């Protein structure tokens, strides 16, 4: 056979054509499968290859005070973000980032855990980087391909530490929160910044939280961002809702300013016209701005291990023996039940003590003599209230005080509030102390001692009722918010009875009153000092807690502001607490009535700095107003430096 015969060659050529066709066909089929049959899948993969979704964080709603001043808003800040990558790669980048951003090292463990847990998501390593840090990072941009710097809204609290407890703070949502019912809804997901603490940020989280947007950027194979992508519509962030609080920011700041730095305590100011909160302050406070962008471990530990408990809102969580200010409750209950008339004298005049099973002392060793209810309130006479308590009876005092709300919360619109501690019935003694109470327990309770612990807020609500018609709604911080849960305060008191109680309170600051040096030029200041005994004071380890529960308003008019000040270990209420109440009330009322504010406000301050003020004559005249139900017989010539009266 001639292998080179043309026909043989043609036959071989046919075989070769066949092989060629088969191989080209195999290739064609390979492309057909990928480019025609499965193109959509690959197209998506190509997009996810080069497109990275970046969150556009939504600004939280702005929080305004009652005058439209900004309490919390957002300013543009820088966030340093790691683009999604496998965990190991993100952790490696994180390590190198720590050289440029030294602040990250403190949070390394936390960030590493997040990087490993959040595969496929960008990780914000610093939510509030400084300009210097960003500049340093930009210089070494090429070394950090997966790092992205973006501007994002950053929370700012104009009031700083003045509004720490009021606002709470913000931080990244944690796993526990994410699992809770509160966050079991849109848009809560890992990495979101939410309100924390027991302030407004947490309370109105659902309103303040916006809806984040999304933006796509194109990245190259080394995860470097090479530009924005316009193909997929950018979804803009929707800001959170703005809210207007009843708070007076300037008053809040003023209180922060005047509250002694070294002291622990709380201040609550309510507006008696509607029961809304004007100021809510707990000392020491914290600056919520510290939490923005992630607080460092050291500061966090310091805040939480400080024995003065700066993270603890004493105004709504702290409970203290209410002491003398509670005598008004005893009086109100007695008047309400009709067991005492405003001008009634008790059978036994005060001789410095009272015999009931044992000898019960009055705080004033010399005794108050034969006085009526008004004088008893004015002088805080224990003996009078012992007898009034006995008239009411233990059972009735317990049920009435419980009814008023001394065993429950006020229902303020904050995430947490301690209920007052007050026995609901005689069984309380058996449960807690293991014995049945006898009638003598009513003596302790009627002067604010015994198993009775109230929050400053609760006392403020009670005095708001006295400043109104005997009723007080649940205190509100955001009046336009959802309806309150707490029951309103309700006392059935005649106008005469209310006038008597208020007049008694007014005389506390009148000449001869225990808090006279706190009296003000323009306003009637009403109030009750108190010296609370705590376990520490009884064992001699600490000074007594000082109360001043007060209200103030134009002379002869209704009170327009209720202020409660508690200074822990503050000694007597008239010396430490009363001036704070007076200064806060004066500050608020002057601004409300358009009168310039002075820093020298109380009589005591005037006397110490400028001598006796000219307006003191008015006060003296006022002391002898004809409306006086009783004759106080005030000394017209005051002692140059009146000794601060013991509170109780």
């Amino acid at each position, binding site marked *: 056979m001639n292998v080179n015969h043309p026909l043989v060659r043609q036959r071989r050529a046919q075989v070769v054509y066949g092989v060629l066709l088969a191989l080209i066909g195999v290739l064609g089929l390979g492309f057909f499968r990928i480019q025609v049959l499965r*193109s959509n899948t690959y197209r998506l993969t190509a997009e996810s290859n080069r497109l990275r979704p970046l969150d556009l964080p939504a600004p939280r709603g702005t929080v305004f005070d009652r005058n439209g001043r900004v309490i919390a808003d957002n300013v543009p800040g820088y966030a340093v973000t790691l683009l999604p990558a496998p965990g190991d790669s993100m952790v490696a980048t994180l390590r190198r980032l720590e050289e440029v951003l030294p602040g990250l090292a403190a949070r390394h463990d936390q960030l590493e855990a997040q990087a490993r847990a959040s595969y496929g998501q960008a990780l914000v390593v610093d939510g509030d980087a400084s300009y210097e840090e960003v500049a340093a990072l930009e210089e070494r941009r090429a070394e950090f391909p997966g790092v992205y710097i973006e501007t994002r809204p950053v929370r700012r609290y104009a009031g700083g530490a003045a509004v720490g407890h009021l606002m709470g703070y913000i931080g990244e949502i944690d796993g526990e929160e994410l699992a809770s019912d509160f966050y079991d809804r849109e848009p809560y997901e890992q990495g979101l910044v939410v309100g924390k603490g027991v302030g407004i940020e947490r309370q109105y989280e659902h309103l303040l939280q916006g809806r984040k947007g999304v933006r796509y950027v194109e990245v190259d194979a080394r995860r470097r961002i090479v530009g924005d992508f316009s193909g997929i519509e950018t979804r803009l962030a929707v800001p959170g809702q703005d809210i207007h609080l009843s708070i007076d920011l300037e008053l809040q700041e003023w209180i922060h300013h005047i509250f002694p730095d070294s002291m622990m305590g709380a201040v609550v100011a309510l507006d008696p016209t509607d029961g809304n909160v004007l100021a809510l302050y707990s000392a020491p406070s914290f600056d919520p701005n510290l939490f923005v962008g992630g607080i460092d471990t050291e500061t966090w530990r310091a805040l939480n291990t400080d024995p003065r408990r700066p993270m603890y809102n004493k105004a709504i969580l702290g409970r203290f023996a209410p002491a003398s200010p509670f005598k008004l409750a005893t009086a109100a209950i007695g008047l309400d039940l009709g067991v005492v008339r405003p001008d009634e004298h008790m059978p036994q005049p005060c001789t410095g003590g009272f015999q009931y099973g044992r000898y019960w002392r009055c705080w004033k060793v010399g005794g108050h003599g034969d006085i009526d209810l008004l004088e008893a309130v004015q002088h805080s006479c224990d003996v009078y209230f012992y007898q009034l308590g006995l008239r009411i009876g233990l059972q009735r005092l317990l049920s009435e005080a419980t009814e008023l709300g001394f065993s429950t919360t006020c229902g303020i619109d904050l995430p947490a509030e301690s209920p007052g501690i007050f026995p609901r019935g005689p069984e309380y003694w058996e449960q807690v102390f293991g014995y049945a109470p006898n009638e003598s327990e009513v003596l302790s309770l009627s002067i604010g001692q015994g198993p009775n612990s109230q929050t400053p807020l609760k006392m403020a609500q009670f005095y708001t009722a006295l400043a109104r018609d005997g009723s007080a709604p649940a205190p509100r911080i955001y009046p336009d918010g959802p309806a309150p849960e707490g029951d309103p305060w309700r006392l059935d008191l005649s106008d005469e009875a209310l006038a008597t109680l208020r007049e008694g309170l007014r005389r506390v600051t009148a000449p001869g009153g225990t808090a006279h040096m706190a009296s003000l030029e323009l306003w009637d200041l009403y109030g009750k000092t108190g010296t609370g005994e705590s376990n520490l004071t009884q064992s001699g380890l600490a000074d007594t807690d000082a109360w001043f529960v007060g209200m103030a308003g134009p002379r002869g008019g209704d009170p327009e502001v209720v202020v409660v000040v508690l200074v822990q270990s503050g000694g007597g209420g008239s010396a430490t607490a009363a001036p704070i109440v007076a200064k806060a009330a004066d500050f608020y009322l002057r601004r409300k009535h358009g009168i310039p504010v002075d820093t020298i406000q109380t009589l005591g301050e005037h006397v110490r700095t400028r001598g006796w003020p000219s307006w003191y004559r008015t006060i003296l005249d006022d002391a002898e107003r004809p409306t006086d139900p009783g004759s106080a017989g005030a000394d017209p010539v005051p002692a140059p430096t009146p000794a601060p009266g013991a509170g109780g």
Partner: protein
Amino acid sequence: MGRWFRSWSMDPPLVAGVLILSIFGIAMIYSAGVTISPQRVVQVAWIRQLAWFGIALGVFTVVSRIPTGWLEWVAVPAYVMSLVLLAVTLVIGTGVGTAAGTKSSIAIAGFRFQPAEVAKLATVLVLARYLASRGSAPASLRDMVAPGFLAAVPLGLVLLQPDLGTAQAFVGILFATLFWAGAPVSLLLLLASPVAALILAFDTRVWSVYIVAVMGALYLLRYRLFLYESAAVLLTNFAAGTIARPLWDSMPPYQQNRILVYLDPQVDPRESGYHIIQSKIAIGNGGMWGKGFTDGTQKRYDFLPEQHTDFIFSVVGEELGFVGVILALLVFAWVMARLVRLAADAEDPFAGIVLMGIFGAWLVHIFVNVGMTVGVVPITGIPLPFVSYGGSFLLMSWVAVALAVRVGHDDERVTG
């Protein structure tokens, strides 16, 4: 001028085909350089390729005039010299780019060239000369020993570089030339059988069935084979089956992975599997009509590796789509079919075998290069003739065209 032009017009279908491919290649190399963070080398590659294209055309006009007789005469010296060059390369050779770890090219006066490219053509010529001079078709396995040896020596030297991709071309050359010289397909299959045994040895049962099949084939072909040939086939099959496992174990992990990712790219998506995964994404992203010239996102954002050399066809797939791919494959098919046609028409056995040798080499290049971009074959570093960037490769491809045109039309010249 007329004579110059005649060398071009000797085979317009073939020359037109490779001209289209070369210009298409330069265009695609230009596109490969259009990325978001351009590398200078890739960005200007098309200009260098254009320059080499000019040189290649010049060389073409010269080589296409060499009388066929000279080619026959030069075959042996060229072959020997290319072997020497390959050996020298193993000592002083260097690698470039991704082949930096290999000893595949030598630099002369600033120019790099790969002796393997010369060796391919020299081997085609020497095989053609040997087979054509035999006068009769290789009818037994024994007849295939000498040609097998001629191909195996350069193949082995190239493997030592190591350059598995180019080595495969010698296999293509050997089988194509043997076939055209008249070797029966059954013998060629037997010749290839040890390779199949090597692969199938990883499953003992399949391998057993295969060995029985080989024995059956040997029985059927018992009249055409010497006994010792049958024994040799069987032995090599057994040997291949036996060394398969140790051979696998002795391979460096990166080579093992290259084979494993062919079966499943996801076993190593970041390293060995990265090329094939990104290449398939690019091609799939192109869809039916493609993203448009220079607009492939996989390429543009640097996800596609080697986009101007070995993976140039992925750029074709992404930017010109299935339609562009099929058109490109059709041009290749056209060129290849033209080679077969010339071979079939060539009265001179030497001419026919040279044409088929070139055909065999290109077929391996095209099938393996294009096939690896879609995962049809495992990835080996092998360029696509006329399209991939590479000066000496383009030049030698055009020399091959010149040889094809020369030998394919010798008859006309003699008569004309």
